[in-house]
């Protein structure tokens, strides 16, 4: 062999290095792609990118095998005439024909009843474009996957303090001393969390992981606190109880920056019972969301005064009467009353965590926050004009995600988390939680869903946005009878704050024609016939079910995907998408950009290689369809084409003519001299490319903290059009928004009111203060018969699931086991490695069990989405993924029968519609010895689609570029 150091690697062929943005998961790291002789040789993290700072994850480093996957689709496909759906029987067609078919169908829908197009996308972060397309088309039936992911986390925290985790904000581990991670199923987010956690641990920070399972991040925790799934709310409320009892809360922070001291009307007979008492004489500007007309009880004069009146000090506790006799209490007193009985001993019986541990955790949090204060010499001015010479931090940071979110009690649980973080005084302060632009946003943010049938008109854009943030019952998307406008029943009285929609119910509802029938189901990057659906087997049946006339109940299904997923087989029309290395894309400030704590960051993806075969970026499909359909945003007044292609659209589109706001915030203005707001810049793409594909505006230090109340920041944000209002974004310890829905349920709201059969449901769950209830499914399931909770996690090496076709990654997770505590095996009469049946009230799967001591004994778990349907994803029909791998989805129902007035509802959180994946209860028993040693259910193997790349060889010895030597 030649000497290993005599020749440079870059001299082995024609080499070049290009930068772009990864899309192997949703983190969106900067990458450098090394090309040798036109083939991808090496993908490394870009050291000059703020998000990943040069590192890369297992997935990102396997992008080569994604690029050269055998599952790539390269031609548009039409279901063969006479062939049934699901058989994968296609014929290739041209893009002209594909666009022609779509145009004819969608133009008819738009001209008659725009609701009949349902556009749902699996991966989000393209919502600024997909959502805009839906709005322009005029259909309310649009969402991305958030409803079955972690919408509770977004909604629960944004409705509490105007921000949330992941893209919205996160723990400041550079300065935290104590970090508590609770309910994170190895998920959001990936590299930034690992970078921060590594630094935090090296600096000697203390890390506590609360989780039923000890893997991944929890593995390196200083303390693991195992908890029963679905009971996090009980733990959080007990922590709040203890912190209040001990006086370990940050009183000054609460009084000035939250509504804790503000007085709530306690007159049960009043129409405004449970709302803040207000001074009618205070001038309230129309352009405000946080009115300054509320009271607190001044400690010095023992009288009610307008809250935050200089020289007064609101009381957090007590029981008072206004001059007119109205009984009132500070909202903090109501919180204190609420948690009175949520003692650590009570929580122990629910969570399985010893009361002494809960107490100690509360003390650790409280004492660390109080006694290890950080003071930064940064002068700033608050929204009320008070000057501060320092920024204070209470260094206790939290992170949480799906483990809290994916339960039917998740919203109130997450409200409790937000309140815990707030009473410790950690919001947008060093060492605690910090926002990422465009957050903080008003509570709730401005966009509102369509408010009635009038919002949906043929050949007209939708009035409102398909997804929005209801502030009160009148913002709901319901008709005059209180019935849903959306196919997924989002923003209806069943799930009023479903801010990301309910994608998990779209197929069932469309199949049933409830609330109405649709025509075209348009799916992008969503594996709804497999791991993204609950009740997978039946959902697959619904996709092929026909009415008495022999027509499909869902008449037309369009699937846009890069790969031969299980869902592609059910399409009538398949649109082949490109890989991430073959496209332009934006991580837009209008969506969820990649901002840092210190200021807004957005970024772009640029093509490294030409599209494979006839694959076409989905963005181009939308721009082309928008143009052909004459959607106003895509055409000139005379109906002619406005944008040449997607890159042209990104540069020149403005939210309104002349608004200066577009998809990208950086290098706006004619020559790139402006940012956030400015005229289109024809060289914008090049300017991004020259700056490692991102734009980063670092805020002045005095604008980097306390942004909910930071006058300088809020003024800056308003000038740069990040926010509409200048109002401070005060923390909702007590949620008046929720109380308004409760008043509607009680008949006390003057506007929209729920149908009678839903009044009790709304009244119960729209509690303005967090409370604990057992997950809804547990009330129906026989928990003696089904004693175990079953949950899933996403393995880090396959974070964001679609990677079974990746030759390298599939060797790390080739199939999955059900992990159980040995005691589960003892009671189910099976041993480590045995085949077992996992049964829930809704279905069963056969799989292999593996004993683990790193799981709470009442919990069983598996890796999500490792199991695949036979023959899908370019794998051979006998691949381990289909024969030994399994989906837990088969035992999880998308609906719960007999829930409200004898009717079914979605298996979801009753506030937000978040899919309650982790509520499912199961039992595990040994499979009979004579049963086949393969997982069940099995499905008929899929063949390759026409034009699919495939890979015939039994050997892959990948070496980029020309052969060695």
């Amino acid at each position: 062999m030649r000497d290993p150091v005599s020749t440079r690697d870059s001299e082995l062929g024609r080499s070049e290095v290009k930068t772009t943005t990864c899309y192997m998961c949703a983190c969106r790291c900067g990458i450098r792609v090394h090309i040798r002789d036109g083939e991808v040789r090496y993908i490394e993290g870009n050291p000059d990118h703020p998000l990943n700072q040069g590192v890369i994850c297992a997935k990102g480093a396997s992008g080569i095998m994604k690029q050269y996957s055998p599952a790539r689709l390269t031609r548009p496909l039409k279901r063969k005439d006479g062939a049934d759906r699901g058989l994968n029987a296609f014929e290739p067609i041209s893009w002209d024909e594909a666009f022609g078919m779509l145009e004819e169908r969608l133009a008819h829908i738009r001209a008659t009843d725009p609701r009949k197009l349902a556009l749902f996308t699996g991966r989000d972060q393209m919502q600024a474009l997909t959502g805009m397309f839906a709005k322009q088309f005029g259909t309310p039936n649009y969402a991305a996957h958030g409803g079955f992911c972690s919408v509770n986390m977004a909604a629960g925290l944004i409705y509490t303090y105007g921000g949330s985790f992941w893209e919205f904000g996160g723990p400041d581990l550079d300065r935290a001393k104590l970090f508590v991670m609770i309910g994170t199923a190895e998920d959001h987010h990936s590299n930034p969390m690992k970078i921060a956690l590594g630094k935090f641990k090296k600096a000697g920070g203390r890390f506590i992981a609360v989780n039923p399972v000890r893997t991944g991040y929890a593995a390196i925790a200083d303390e693991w606190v195992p908890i029963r799934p679905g009971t996090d709310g009980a733990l959080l409320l007990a922590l709040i109880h203890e912190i209040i009892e001990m006086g370990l809360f940050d009183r000054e922070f609460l009084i000035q920056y939250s509504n804790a001291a503000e007085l709530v009307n306690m007159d049960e007979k009043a129409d405004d019972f449970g709302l803040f008492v207000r001074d009618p004489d205070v001038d309230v500007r129309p352009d405000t969301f946080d009115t300054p007309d509320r009271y607190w009880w001044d400690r010095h004069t023992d009288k009610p005064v307008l809250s935050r009146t200089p020289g007064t000090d609101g009381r957090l506790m007590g029981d008072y009467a206004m001059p007119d006799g109205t009984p009132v209490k500070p909202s903090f007193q109501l919180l204190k009353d609420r948690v009175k009985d949520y003692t650590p001993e009570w929580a122990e019986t629910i969570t399985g965590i010893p009361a002494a541990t809960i107490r100690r955790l509360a003390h650790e949090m409280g004492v660390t926050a109080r006694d290890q204060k950080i003071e930064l010499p940064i002068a700033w001015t608050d929204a009320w004009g008070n000057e501060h010479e320092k920024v204070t931090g209470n260094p206790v940071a939290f992170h949480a995600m799906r483990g809290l979110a994916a339960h039917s009690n998740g919203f109130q649980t997450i409200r409790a988390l937000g309140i815990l973080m707030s009473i410790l005084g950690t919001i947008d302060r060093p060492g605690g939680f910090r926002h990422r632009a465009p957050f903080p946003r008003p509570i709730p943010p401005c966009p509102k869903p369509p408010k009635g049938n009038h919002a949906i008109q043929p050949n007209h854009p939708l009035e409102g946005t398909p997804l929005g943030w209801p502030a009160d019952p009148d913002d709901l998307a319901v008709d005059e009878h209180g019935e849903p406008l959306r196919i997924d029943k989002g923003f209806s009285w069943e799930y009023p704050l479903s801010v990301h929609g309910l994608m998990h119910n779209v197929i069932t509802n469309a199949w049933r024609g409830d609330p109405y029938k649709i025509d075209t189901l348009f799916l992008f990057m969503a594996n709804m016939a497999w791991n993204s659906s609950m009740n997978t087997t039946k959902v697959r049946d619904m996709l092929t079910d026909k009415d008495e006339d022999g027509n499909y109940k869902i008449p037309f299904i369009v699937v846009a995907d890069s790969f031969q997923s299980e869902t592609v087989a059910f399409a009538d029309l398949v649109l082949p998408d490109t890989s991430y290395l073959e496209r332009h894309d934006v991580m837009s400030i209008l969506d969820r950009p990649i901002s840092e704590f210190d200021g807004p960051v957005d970024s772009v993806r640029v093509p490294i290689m030409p599209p494979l075969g006839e694959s076409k970026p989905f963005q181009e499909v939308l721009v082309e369809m928008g143009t052909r359909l004459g959607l106003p945003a895509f055409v000139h007044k005379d109906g002619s084409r406005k944008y040449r292609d997607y890159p042209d659209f990104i540069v020149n589109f403005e939210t309104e003519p002349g608004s200066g706001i577009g998809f990208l915030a950086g290098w706006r203005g004619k020559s790139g001299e402006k940012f956030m707001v400015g005229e289109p810049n024809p060289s914008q793409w090049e300017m991004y490319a020259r700056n490692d594909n991102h734009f980063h505006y670092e805020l002045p230090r005095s604008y980097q903290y306390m942004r909910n109340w930071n006058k300088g920041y809020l003024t800056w944000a308003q000038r740069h059009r990040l926010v509409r209002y200048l109002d401070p974004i005060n923390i909702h310890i007590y949620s008046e928004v929720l109380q308004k829905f409760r008043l509607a349920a009680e008949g006390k709201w003057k506007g929209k009111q729920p149908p009678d059969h839903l009044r009790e449901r709304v009244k119960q769950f729209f509690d303005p203060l967090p409370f604990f209830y057992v997950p809804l499914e547990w009330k129906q399931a026989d928990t003696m018969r089904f004693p175990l909770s079953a949950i899933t996690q996403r393995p880090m090496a396959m974070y964001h699931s679609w990677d079974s076709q990746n030759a390298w990654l599939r060797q790390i997770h080739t199939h999955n086991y059900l992990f159980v505590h040995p005691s589960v095996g003892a009671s189910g009469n099976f041993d480590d490695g045995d085949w077992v049946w996992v049964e829930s009230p809704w279905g069963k799967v056969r799989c292999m069990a593996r004993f683990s001591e790193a799981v709470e004994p009442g919990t069983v778990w598996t890796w999500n989405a490792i199991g695949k349907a036979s023959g899908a994803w370019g794998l051979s029909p006998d691949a381990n993924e289909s024969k030994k791998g399994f989906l837990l989805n088969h035992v999880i129902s998308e609906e719960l029968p007999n829930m409200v007035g004898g009717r079914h509802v979605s298996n979801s959180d009753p506030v937000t519609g978040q899919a309650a994946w982790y509520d499912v209860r199961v039992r595990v028993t040994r499979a009979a010895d004579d049963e086949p040693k393969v997982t069940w259910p099995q499905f008929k193997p899929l063949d390759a689609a026409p034009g699919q790349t495939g890979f015939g060889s039994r050997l892959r010895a990948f070496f980029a570029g020309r052969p060695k030597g």
Partner: protein
Amino acid sequence: MSTKQLALVIDLNICVGCHACVTSCKEWNTSGWAGPLPDQNPYDADPAGVFFNRVQTYELGTFPNTETVHFPKSCLHCEDPPCVPVCPTGASYKRDEDGIVLVDYDKCIGCKYCSWSCPYGAREFDEVQGVMKKCTLCVDRIYDTSLPEDRRKPACVLACPSGARIFGDVKDPDSEASQAIVENSGFQLMPEWGTNPANHYLPRRKTKVTLHQDELVRADNPLKIEGEQPKVPFTAPSIDEMSSW
């Protein structure tokens, strides 16, 4: 003996088991000097490929006192590598200049003596080429002066998101790697075999806090401002309750 010994120091206190090092290694090396790293049955049943670096996961203890340890493992570049003297052709060798243990595929006859002698199971046989392969510490990167100096590191080290991998000369007492070993009780795998592995591991270190009961309540407790007395932070019975005469 070399005066320089390059090695990896892997911090088990930080490794989250994400496998970034595994696939970064694979992608760099399959198209590099030591490549290709073939995969058999890449899209069929039981795929099996050559990886120079793998992460194993262990559970220690019993619930609830369980530790989950992610344990990345590659060739340890022993100072006394048993794989070298057993090689009949001299294909397996240790470089004088930096202590890296390498295999010359042109000399390797695939007899596997080296893998039998390696107590760590760190060698990977390429069934296609019929030769033994293994971690090279990215020898084709670390001396490449066309790369920026801070990128002249093994691919696994560059990739590691949590920063759990340190690369350096463990014979230079001032190197970051040596310092990390000394300061954190770094250890070798199975030193009793006398192989003197160059790679080291840093053990789990726990950060704990001690809360003194009398620090729980401070004089400026906000409950006092609200006119309430803080809860007494102890619940044990009093003598008054217990004594009787």
